[in-house]
C-alpha cells in the first residue's frame, strides 16, 4: 500500500471507504429486516397457537379421539414446519410434519428445556382453569424463508457494491485529475530539477486550494533559486573574468619584472664595465703619465746634480722647481691610481707583523723635512712597550704620512703631535695626529674625506694638495677594519684619530662615506687668515701679477721683467687689493682660481673705486673659459686668456699697449 502511486492509493481509499459504508449499511439493513421478520413470524406463530389453543383445549378436556389428526390442518399454513401435541404427562398425542421434513418432535425430556425458547419455536402449556391439560409444540419454518431473504439481500448488496466500486474507480480516476495530477506534476518537476539542475522549469498552475498554493510556493521557490543560481553563475563568470585578468596582469607583471631585471642587470653590467674601463683607463693613463714623468724627474735630477757640481745656483734653483712640480704631479697620479684601485676593489692588503714604534720613527723621519718647511715642530709620543701590530705596514705608513703632511700644510710655526697608544680594549691601537693649525668648521669636516674635495676650493689653491690623501687614508683604514675620525676647532687646531685593530684580518673592503654625525667638533670662532700682507711699496708698477701658484708666478714675472717692465706680484685677490692700495699699476694680470679672494671677487672689489676700475685687467686662467665665465666678467676685463703657448705673446702685446696708454695718461696728467 505504501509503495503504491498516489493515484492508486486514492482509488483504493475511495473503494475501501465505499465498501465499508456499504457493508455497514448491508449489515444494518439485514439486522433490521431480520428483526422485523422474526417478530412477524412470532406474531403469526402466536396467532396459530391461539387458534390451535382454542381448537385443541376443548378436545383435551374431553380427551376426544379427535385429538389425533387435530394438527393436520396446519398443512394449510405455510409457516408451520412442524407441530406436536403432548399430554400433561408428556405423552405425544399428535404430530404434524411438513412433507419432506425430518421428524422434529422433541422427546418428552426435551420439553422442559424448550419451554423458554423463542427461536421460531413455541412450546405452550395448555391450561384450563389453572389445570394443566398438555403441551403444544410449534416450530415455524424459519430456515427456508430466511435463506431466501438473506440471499436476496446479499445479491442486492453485492450488485450495489460492484456498482459503487466502479463508481469509486471512476471517481478516483477522475479525482486524480484535480488532486493527484498536480501533485504528480510537482513530484515529476522536483525529480527533473534534482536530476537536471534546471531551475527554469515551472509546474503548471492548474490546481487551486492548498495544492495550488503549494505549487505557487514551489514555483516561487524555483524562481528564487533560479535567480540565485543565475546571480551565482554571473558572479562566477565575473570571478572567472577577474581571475583571467589577474592572471594576465600577473603575466604582464612577470614579463615586466623580467624586463626590468634584465635592464637593471644590463645597466649594472654596463656600469660595472664602465667602471672597469674607467679604472683600466686611469691605470693605463697613470702608467703612460708616469713614464715620461719619471724621465723628467730622472733627467732633472741628473741636471741638478751637474748644476750643483758646477756651482750654477740659478740653474739648480730652476731645476729644483721642475723637480718639485714633477714630484707633485707624480704624487697626484699615484693618488688617483690609488683611488681608482680602491673604487674598483683592486686594492690589496699585504698583512705582516711589525714593530709599531719602529714604524712611527721611520714615518717621523720621512715627514720631518715637510714639517720643518713651515717652521713647525714635530712631537712624538710612542711608548717603547707598545709592541707589534699585524697590518699592512705600507698603508699605515702612507696614512700617517698623509695625515702628518696634511697637518703641516695647514699649520705654521706650530706644533704637530703624533701620539700612539693602545686602546683600553686591548684590541686596537690609536694613533693621533694633532696640529695647532687653522682648524675646520663642521661643514668643512663633512666634506673632508670625500675624494677630490678639500675643505673648500680656495684651501686647495692656497695649500696645494689634491684632497685625495684623506680619502685614501680613510679607505685604507676601513679596509683594515679601522677608522679615522676628526676633532677640530676652527683657529685652534685639528686632531685626526686613527683607530686600527692590532690584528688586521684581510677583509673585503667597501668604499664608505664618512658619517658626519660621528665627528665631534669644537665651537671656537675662526681666526682671520690674511696675515700675508707684504710691507708697503709705493714705487711705480707696470704690471700687477696676481697668481697663487709660485712656479707659474715666477715664470710669468720673469717673462714680463725680461720685457723691461716693473712687476709686482700677489698670491691672491686680497693681496692684490693690498697692492692696489699702495700703487695703481698700468695693468693687472689675474688668475681666477685663487685662495682667500679669487679672481671674480677681486674684479667685483675693483669696481668699488673709480681709479681701480680704469686699470685694464687681463684674465689668464687654466680654467675652461665657458660662456658663463664670459658673461660673469663681461665689460669688466680687457681680455680673457687660456693659459697656453700662444696666450703669452698675446698678453705681452696687450700689456705693452696698456703700459703705453698708462704712460700717456700720466704724461697728460703731469702737463
Amino acid at each position, binding site marked *: 500500500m505504501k509503495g503504491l502511486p498516489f493515484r492508486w492509493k486514492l482509488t483504493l481509499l475511495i473503494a475501501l471507504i465505499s465498501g465499508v459504508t456499504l457493508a455497514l449499511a448491508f449489515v444494518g439493513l439485514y439486522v433490521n429486516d431480520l428483526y422485523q421478520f422474526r417478530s412477524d413470524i412470532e406474531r403469526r406463530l402466536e396467532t396459530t397457537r391461539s387458534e390451535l389453543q382454542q381448537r385443541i383445549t376443548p378436545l383435551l378436556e374431553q380427551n376426544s379421539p379427535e385429538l389425533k389428526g387435530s394438527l393436520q390442518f396446519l398443512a394449510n399454513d405455510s409457516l408451520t414446519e412442524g407441530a406436536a401435541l403432548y399430554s400433561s404427562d408428556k405423552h405425544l398425542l399428535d404430530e404434524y410434519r411438513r412433507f419432506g421434513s425430518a421428524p422434529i418432535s422433541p422427546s418428552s425430556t426435551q420439553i422442559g428445556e424448550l419451554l423458554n425458547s423463542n427461536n421460531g419455536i413455541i412450546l405452550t402449556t395448555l391450561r384450563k382453569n389453572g389445570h394443566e391439560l398438555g403441551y403444544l409444540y410449534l416450530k415455524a419454518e424459519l430456515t427456508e424463508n430466511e435463506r431466501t431473504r438473506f440471499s436476496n439481500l446479499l445479491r442486492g448488496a453485492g450488485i450495489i457494491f460492484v456498482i459503487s466500486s466502479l463508481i469509486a474507480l471512476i471517481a478516483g480516476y477522475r479525482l486524480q485529475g484535480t488532486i493527484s495530477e498536480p501533485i504528480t506534476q510537482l513530484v515529476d518537476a522536483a525529480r527533473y530539477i534534482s536530476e537536471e539542475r534546471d531551475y527554469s522549469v515551472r509546474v503548471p498552475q492548474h490546481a487551486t486550494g492548498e495544492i495550488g498554493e503549494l505549487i505557487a510556493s514551489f514555483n516561487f521557490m524555483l524562481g528564487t533559486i533560479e535567480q540565485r543560481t543565475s546571480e551565482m553563475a554571473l558572479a562566477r563568470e565575473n570571478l572567472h573574468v577577474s581571475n583571467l585578468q589577474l592572471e594576465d596582469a600577473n603575466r604582464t607583471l612577470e614579463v615586466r619584472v623580467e624586463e626590468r631585471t634584465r635592464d637593471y642587470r644590463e645597466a649594472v653590467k654596463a656600469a660595472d664595465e664602465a667602471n672597469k674601463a674607467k679604472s683600466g683607463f686611469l691605470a693605463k693613463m697613470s702608467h703612460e703619465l708616469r*713614464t715620461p714623468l*719619471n724621465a723628467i724627474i730622472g733627467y732633472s735630477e741628473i741636471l741638478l746634480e751637474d748644476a750643483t757640481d758646477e756651482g750654477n745656483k740659478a740653474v739648480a734653483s730652476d731645476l729644483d722647481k721642475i723637480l718639485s712640480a714633477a714630484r707633485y704631479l707624480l704624487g697626484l697620479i699615484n693618488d688617483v691610481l690609488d683611488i681608482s684601485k680602491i673604487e674598483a676593489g683592486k686594492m690589496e692588503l*699585504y698583512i705582516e707583523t711589525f714593530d709599531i714604534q719602529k714604524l712611527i720613527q721611520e714615518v717621523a723621519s720621512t715627514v720631518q723635512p715637510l714639517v720643518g718647511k713651515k717652521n713647525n715642530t714635530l712631537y712624538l709620543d710612542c711608548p717603547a712597550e707598545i709592541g707589534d701590530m699585524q697590518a699592512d705596514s705600507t698603508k699605515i705608513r702612507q696614512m700617517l704620512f698623509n695625515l702628518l703632511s696634511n697637518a703641516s700644510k695647514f699649520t705654521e710655526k706650530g706644533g704637530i703631535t703624533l701620539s700612539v697608544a693602545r686602546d683600553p680594549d686591548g684590541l686596537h691601537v690609536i694613533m693621533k695626529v694633532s696640529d695647532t693649525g687653522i682648524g675646520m668648521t663642521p661643514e668643512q669636516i663633512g666634506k673632508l674625506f670625500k675624494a677630490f674635495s678639500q675643505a673648500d676650493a680656495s684651501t686647495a689653491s692656497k695649500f696645494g694638495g689634491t684632497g685625495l690623501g684623506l680619502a685614501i687614508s680613510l679607505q685604507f683604514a676601513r679596509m683594515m677594519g679601522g677608522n679615522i675620525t676628526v676633532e677640530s676647532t676652527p683657529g685652534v687646531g685639528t686632531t685626526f684619530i686613527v683607530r686600527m685593530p692590532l690584528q688586521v684580518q684581510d677583509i673585503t673592503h667597501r668604499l664608505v662615506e664618512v658619517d658626519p654625525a660621528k665627528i665631534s667638533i669644537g665651537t671656537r670662532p675662526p681666526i682671520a687668515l690674511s696675515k700675508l700682507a707684504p710691507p708697503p711699496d709705493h714705487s711705480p708698477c707696470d704690471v700687477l701679477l696676481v697668481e697663487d701658484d709660485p712656479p707659474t708666478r715666477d715664470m710669468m714675472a720673469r717673462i714680463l721683467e725680461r720685457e723691461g717692465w716693473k712687476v709686482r706680484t700677489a698670491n691672491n685677490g686680497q693681496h692684490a687689493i693690498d697692492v692696489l692700495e699702495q700703487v695703481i699699476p698700468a695693468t693687472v694680470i689675474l688668475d681666477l682660481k685663487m685662495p682667500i679672494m679669487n679672481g671674480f671677487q677681486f674684479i667685483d672689489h675693483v669696481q668699488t673705486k673709480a681709479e681701480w676700475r680704469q686699470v685694464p685687467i687681463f684674465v689668464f686662467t687654466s680654467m675652461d673659459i665657458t660662456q658663463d665665465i664670459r658673461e660673469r666678467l663681461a665689460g669688466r676685463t680687457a681680455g680673457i686668456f687660456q693659459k697656453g703657448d700662444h696666450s703669452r705673446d698675446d698678453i705681452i702685446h696687450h700689456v705693452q699697449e696698456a703700459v703705453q696708454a698708462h704712460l700717456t695718461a700720466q704724461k697728460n696728467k703731469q702737463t
Partner: protein
Amino acid sequence: MPKILLVEDNEMNRDMLSRRLEKRGYTVVLAVDGAASIAQAKAEKPDLILMDMSLPVIDGWEATKQIRADAEIAATPIIALTAHAMSSDREKCLAAGCDDFDTKPVELPRLLAKIEEMLKKGKTPPA
C-alpha cells in the same frame, strides 16, 4: 769597480740610470729584454743585476728564474725594479728569486743604498 747589469726596456730610464750609476763609479752593462739579460749575465758576469720586471720577449720574473737555474750565474744578486708598488708584486719578485726589490721611479739614494748593501753581502771576498 763593481759591474752592474741593468736590464731595462725603456730607453730613457736605461740612459738615466746607467749615467747616474756610472757617475758613481760603477761599470754598467745593458740589456733591453729578459732574454738578452740572461745572455749578458753569462757573457759579462756582472757583480749585480738590476732587473726591470715588465720586459719584452721574456719578463723579469721568468728571466730571474732562468738565471737562478743556471749554475754559472745563479749566485748573482738581483734587485728587482718594478713600477707596481704593490705588496703582491714584492712577494712575486722574491718568490721568483730576486734578492731585493725597489720601486720605480727610482729614488737614487735609496737604490744606491740597496746596491751597496747587496754587493757587500753578495761579494764575500773570494777565497
